[in-house]
């Protein structure tokens, strides 16, 4: 009888040892499987931070330049518009003084855009000057403004995305 119980106790000790060993092995397997995922998560977070850092520096610098350029363009457009208004007043109001202002219309713009035929009437020249302002000055300014807006919007979206990303990554690391 004692022998039977002794064998049972030894068997139970063996079962306990076996249990502990097998569970340790499974836990170690699971931890080993986690490592590559942790590494990849860190790599994603670093890549995002790097990409963001690089583009943010360049974008901030260039946006400042573009803003200055936009202000200069706006000023120039305003000057041209005022000049055109003055010409219009002379052409439609005083009539005779239009020929004297011909040089101003062409002066500020591109050579081809400002060129007018010898037979053009003052009204045609005014219309061409209006087209020039609209296409060359306003068009350029608006395109630039749109690009700057796209950059600003995308940057702020990026920042908000990255503010959320590391918080999730750090929680489980």
């Amino acid at each position: 009888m004692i022998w039977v119980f002794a064998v049972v106790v030894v068997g139970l000790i063996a079962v306990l040892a076996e249990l502990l060993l097998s569970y340790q092995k499974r836990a170690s397997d699971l931890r080993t499987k986690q490592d590559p995922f942790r590494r990849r998560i860190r790599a994603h977070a670093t890549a995002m931070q790097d990409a963001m850092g690089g583009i943010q520096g360049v974008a901030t610098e260039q946006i400042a330049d573009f803003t200055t350029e936009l202000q200069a363009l706006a000023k120039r457009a305003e000057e041209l518009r005022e000049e055109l208004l003055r010409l219009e007043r002379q052409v439609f109001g005083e009539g005779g003084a239009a020929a004297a202002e011909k040089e101003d219309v062409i002066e500020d713009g591109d050579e081809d855009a400002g060129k007018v035929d010898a037979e053009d009437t003052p009204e045609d020249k005014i219309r061409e000057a209006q087209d020039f302002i609209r296409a060359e000055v306003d068009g350029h300014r608006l395109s630039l403004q749109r690009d700057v807006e796209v950059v600003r919007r995308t940057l702020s979206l990026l920042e908000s995305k990255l503010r959320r990303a590391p918080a999730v990554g750090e929680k489980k690391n």
Partner: protein
Amino acid sequence: MLEGLLIGGVALIIVNLVVRDQTQFRISRLRAELLGLISEEKRLAERRDEVELMVAQIADALMRADRR
């Protein structure tokens, strides 16, 4: 002697059960952590693609604006 073996046997059965339960709990926690890491890795990979796309868009817009 017989009583000692009997008590020892019962104690060993209880210890076995406790060890099994505790370790199973730890294993299930590790498994859940692994699943969480897998899904987080997938989410971050998607976010990284989005971020790279956005960075490309910004670079594109900057280059376009620079060329004007």
